[in-house]
């Protein structure tokens, strides 16, 4: 399933990084401590977090995450938005919390 298909199914709203939406999704990771995430998230993961700063974009890029989903409507700052567009890393927002979102991802990915 692609990032775009998953996002459409789960009702996430795209904030930035549209160029990367055709990417295939492989699994999911949840976390907010960037060093921790960096050492554990795997390529292709949907990454659920509340960290919407430019460093989160760097971590998504370095780990080759498929996309970032900002849960509980956490904010994406302007610099992060620009970097996500430039690096084509999709960033979505949802009002649901990380637990609910992870459950929905698990169900959608089967």
């Amino acid at each position: 399933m692609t990032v775009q298909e998953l996002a459409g199914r789960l009702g996430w709203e795209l904030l930035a990084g549209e160029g990367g939406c055709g990417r295939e999704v492989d699994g999911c990771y949840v976390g907010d401590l960037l060093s921790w995430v960096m050492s554990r998230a795997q390529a292709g993961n949907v990454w659920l977090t509340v960290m919407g700063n430019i460093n989160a974009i760097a971590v998504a890029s370095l780990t080759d995450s498929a996309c970032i989903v900002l849960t509980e409507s956490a904010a994406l700052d302007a610099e992060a938005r620009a970097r996500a567009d430039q690096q084509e890393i999709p960033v979505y927002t949802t009002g649901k919390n990380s637990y609910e979102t992870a459950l929905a991802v698990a169900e959608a990915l089967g």
Partner: protein
Amino acid sequence: MSMLSLKYEVPGDDFTRAGEASSDVKHKLKQLGYDPGAVRRVAIAMYEGEINMVIHAGGGEAYVEISPEEVEIHLVDHGPGIPDVEKAMQAGYSTAPDNVRSLGFGAGMGLPNIKKYTDDLQIETEVGKGTTLIMKVRPGA
């Protein structure tokens, strides 16, 4: 034999630019068709090192030598040095200030992550003079 020599300035106190050097190295290694596992390890270790330089040392320089056998990275700063390297290497030990923690760093994972992802790590440090990290990553290792 070195395939590529790179040098970067790591800006001090600028979190928005931290990661530029490691992103660029990652990109170049990919272009060279380098082993993907090694690319990931280089990128993570170097980014952690860059963040450390921004948080603790007011920036510095990164030197990267890429050869088919290994990637060797020297991260050189002129910051305060590390008084107790053994302590700094412990997972969870951090001297990062609160504003850094609110950005998602400062979990005491930086040096442990670098150690975990490199095949060789040497730390040369002197209090009041600065710190140099020398890390090596070998493909397939």
